[in-house]
């Protein structure tokens, strides 16, 4: 299937391997991603802490750009924070026509208008529900057999919108991981918060929360994530070395794609144990 793609700022910087691996994975699966032309920041966590109206305007600008493509395609978002901002703005605009009118006045001089018609979908929503599981199973040929993976979902792809998974006991990654031949670690930490951007300004919070999460990862050979902020925190505050990689990196490796093409030289945690497994 085809999608409009909103990478978001992190994927151009510290989460560059997430961007590379998403693009490579979808290419291998035969899907086409088209970047939303001229996209800009969704406001991240900062906008909603500063100015409520601007925290709608910033994502709305990107929704308007997506609508302007006239493709009718869903917007695919790999970053959970971007996903939530875009989805929340869409919801607010749909429910509040006065707000939509005010936002459109702000957008109009740039020849943009938003009516919240495009669907906003998280990468994991797309991968788990649009048929990727079967294609991964077919292409991976059980390459990850014997491997145990701890799926880490974080928060904002699960909550507050329970769109594609159980917001407290998520399982949408299970089938994807099993499709590679790997086993899924049974744990309760998949949807437990890593501290998100609070860990940026208050590192002691990140250290404690990530410690609690990774302590439970026990026997897993790797933790996989679907959010740049989670990935950053899980790699930054490790109590012991644990390979942490983005889900599309893991699936890409399972499909036999090269580590280099998936940005596997860019992870901050040591993911050699995973790479050597695929090589052997």
């Amino acid at each position, binding site marked *: 299937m085809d999608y409009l793609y909103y990478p978001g*700022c992190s994927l151009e910087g510290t989460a560059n391997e997430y961007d590379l691996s998403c693009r490579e994975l979808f290419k291998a699966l035969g899907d086409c991603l088209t970047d939303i032309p001229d996209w800009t920041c969704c406001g991240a966590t900062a906008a909603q802490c500063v100015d409520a109206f*601007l925290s709608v305007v910033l994502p709305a600008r990107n929704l308007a750009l997506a609508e302007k493509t006239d493709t009718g395609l869903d917007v695919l978002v790999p970053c959970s924070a971007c996903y939530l901002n875009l989805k929340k703005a869409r919801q607010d605009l749909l429910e509040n026509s006065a707000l939509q009118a005010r936002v459109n006045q702000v957008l109009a001089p740039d020849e943009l208008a938003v009516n919240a018609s495009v669907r906003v979908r998280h990468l994991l929503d797309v991968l788990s529900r649009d048929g990727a599981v079967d294609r991964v199973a077919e292409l991976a040929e059980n390459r990850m057999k014997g491997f145990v993976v701890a799926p880490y979902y974080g*928060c*904002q792809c699960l909550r*507050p919108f329970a769109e594609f998974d159980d917001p*407290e006991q998520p399982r949408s990654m299970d089938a994807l991981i099993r499709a590679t031949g790997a086993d899924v670690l049974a744990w309760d930490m998949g949807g*437990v918060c890593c501290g998100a951007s609070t860990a940026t300004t208050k590192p002691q919070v990140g250290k404690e*929360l990530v410690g609690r999460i990774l302590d439970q990862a026990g026997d897993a050979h790797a933790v996989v994530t679907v959010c740049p902020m989670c990935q950053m925190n899980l790699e930054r505050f490790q109590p012991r070395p644990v390979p942490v990689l983005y889900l599309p990196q893991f699936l890409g490796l399972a499909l036999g794609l090269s580590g280099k093409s998936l940005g596997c030289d860019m*992870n*901050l945690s040591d993911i050699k144990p995973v790479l050597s497994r695929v090589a052997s």
Partner: protein
Amino acid sequence: MHLTDIREKLAARPDLTRHLAQVKEQMATCIQCGTCSSSCPNAGFMDMTPRRMWRAVLTDRVDMVFSSQTFMLCASCYVCTLRCPRGLPLTDAMAELKQVAFALDLDRFRRSTRFYRAFMDNIRQYGRVRETEMMARYFLAVKDPRVPMSYTGMGIKLMAKHKLHPHFPTLGPGRLGPLFERATQQQEQ
């Protein structure tokens, strides 16, 4: 800062007083069950539990609310919002308290509010976040050498992975300057 200072600062800002009244109204049906406190991953770091803080909001104890770090420690994980038996928008209300604290510019929240400011200035200027410059500006603005020092190890790792991308800063109205301007004007209407 003395608690009376917060009341004085608020008294001078009727817009923020109105904003707080709206937050209070949103919370009106809180039954003080404490599900928020027991669900919060950061409750252990807070000087006041979320349940107590909402009680302070409901009883107009703004001095208690803004002398606490509780709402600033909200990581927007939405577990309390999901579980609240009254269906209250707790996480969004936390963000509203952050907005008020940002506008009050209280020194005790500097680590957070200077970060938000650096971030917003950065996207106003470039449209997309330039992480390296944003963090450098944050370090300058926070005026506390312990903050950049706590990032040294991380900075070295990121540099080794070629993830720091210094650009020459550019001047002028900024990529999203006019949009920001219009959004401000729209709110003043």
